């Protein structure tokens, strides 16, 4: 896999994850991720698209060791993540973070925004209280919130503001790689664009790499130059986003693109004649 821009930050080879369902003698094995190779360059944003059940989220969770992969190698910045002892896995999260799909369930409702964004600083950076406060204020500015928001609880914020807090928590320790799991799908379209712009700006400012997991192809198009299409646990197509979207090679990718409802659908209907 070549992609001109410098060295790799994340290299994944043969990643596989099986889940089991039921009990003997009817125990079934479900292959959620099937022998995936993936590479993310420094400062690169890679899109991972596919429908629910295609294995995109399990891929991210296996790389992050939120679940243990069945087999495969995961090399992150010179560290073999797959061989890291369980007790040391947490240390990886200083440089590898995740923004979750639903900010309503991924933020602790009993913690203030200050507690939420400073928790990673306490866990990973051993910062003094004064430094933490300073950094918390910086994070608020970076994600487009204000100082007074630090004293609020997630329930007092709008959906867009909550997702900004989720992003603030993820970038607090200045990670090298952030997994974005459907970061805008719970937001209304007018707010969605604002959060997408924030993600683009942050990536440039902080020189981070993204793995963007999404079923929303428009979002991928705006945020990622390279895209991988997943179906049934495998990567069925991969390439520069524009090329894959303009000229899909794989039948599934084409089906996925054709399925997107179009604002000018009425034109086709009316051209065909009849009233609709």
């Amino acid at each position, binding site marked *: 896999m070549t992609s001109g821009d410098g060295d790799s930050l994340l290299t994944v080879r043969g990643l596989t994850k099986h889940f089991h369902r039921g009990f003997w003698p009817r125990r079934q094995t479900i292959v959620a991720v099937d022998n995936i190779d993936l590479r993310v360059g420094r400062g690169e944003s890679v899109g991972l698209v596919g*429908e*629910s059940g295609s294995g995109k989220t399990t891929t991210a969770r296996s790389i992050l060791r939120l679940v243990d992969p069945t087999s495969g190698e995961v090399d992150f910045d010179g560290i073999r993540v797959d061989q890291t002892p369980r007790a040391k896995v947490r240390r990886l999260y200083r440089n590898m973070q995740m923004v979750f799909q639903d900010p309503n369930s991924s933020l602790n409702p009993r913690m203030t925004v200050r507690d939420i964004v400073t928790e990673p600083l306490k866990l990973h950076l051993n910062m003094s209280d004064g430094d933490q406060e300073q950094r918390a204020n910086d994070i608020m500015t970076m994600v487009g919130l204000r100082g007074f928001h630090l004293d609020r609880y997630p329930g007092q914020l*709008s*959906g*867009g503001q909550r997702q900004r807090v989720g992003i603030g928590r993820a970038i607090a320790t200045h990670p090298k790689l952030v997994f974005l799991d459907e970061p805008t799908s719970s937001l*209304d*379209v*007018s*707010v*969605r*664009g*604002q959060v*997408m*712009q924030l993600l*683009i700006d942050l990536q440039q400012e902080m020189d981070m790499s993204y793995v963007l997991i999404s*079923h*929303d*192809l*428009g*979002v*991928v*198009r*705006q945020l990622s130059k390279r895209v991988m299409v997943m179906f049934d646990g495998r990567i069925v197509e991969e390439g520069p986003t524009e090329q894959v*979207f303009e000229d899909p090679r794989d039948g599934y990718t084409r*089906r*996925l693109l*054709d*399925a*997107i*409802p*179009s*604002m*000018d*659908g*009425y*034109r086709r209907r*009316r051209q065909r004649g009849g*009233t*609709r």
Partner: protein
Amino acid sequence: MAVLVEIQNLEGYFDTIGGDVRAINSVNVAIEEGKVTGLVGETGSGKTMTALNIPRLMPENFRYVSGRVLFRGEDVLSWSEERMQLFRGDGVGIAFQDPKAALNPVFTVGEQLGRALRTHTDATKDEARQAALRILERVQITDPGRTIRQYAHELSGGMAQRVMVALAVIHPPTLLILDEPTTGLDVTVQAEIISMLRDLVESMGLTVLLITHDLGVVGELCDNVAVMYAGRTMEFGDISQVFEKPANPYTRELLRSTESVEGGVGDLYSIPGAPPDLRNLPQGCFFQDRCPSVADVCRTVPPVVEVEPGHVSMCHFAERYHSMPGPLHITRGAEAEGGQE
């Protein structure tokens, strides 16, 4: 075309402990017979609340301020509860949002379909069963004989949506309300549901009010569209009028940002700011804080301006917006093509 339902100057609020929540502030919509009318807007814009006024299923703490909901010229709001009971399911049927939650978990699909039919007709159990099988086939369920015996939790998201629609049309209502019929479904399943709905509407000649936040779904299914913002219909008209010649800045900005965010077309664009708080709405136009061409006059309530027959906009500058080139790349490209013909 005859107008089936006309909502005129509807206004009302929710009486809550935290104060009045002004959910509906001037709604004007005309639903034409045999057509699909879209009600589009963001979360909290009042789409569902507008639609629920037709079968009068408003929550108890809703208070009317003004307005009429005319069904074939008669004001539904003045009808007795007995008359409403007959009207619901017969005059108007609803396929609710989130079908897995809306379906009854303790009855099979067949039992629910049978009950829906037998409430309004004197069909026998066997006739109801036959009708249930037929309607499941019409919503393109592959094995109706199997589905009829299943419970809601056994259905996939797409199947549950088909069953929800079947329930609403087994006794075809004069008006069918579809509330977010494709939300939460995968894009390929969504495409199947859209195509099924299109076939169903055409073959049964249904009149539909479709609630959605997705302009793509509007484009695929609707003939007319009402754009809602903070409980107001900002613009209403034929879909080509509204999408190609929007006469309201909110519609314009919404179309432009949707094309860039969801279509991935052009540079990323979004509307600055956020919708207003329904407890504390500004004087005059509700879009003033986010509007690119706000002026002093926007502090006063905008008039409803008819910019062309059937196309209305609630804006002081409706005429000016209407004369601007359309905001969408997709339709602009087509316009250029059309011009060469």
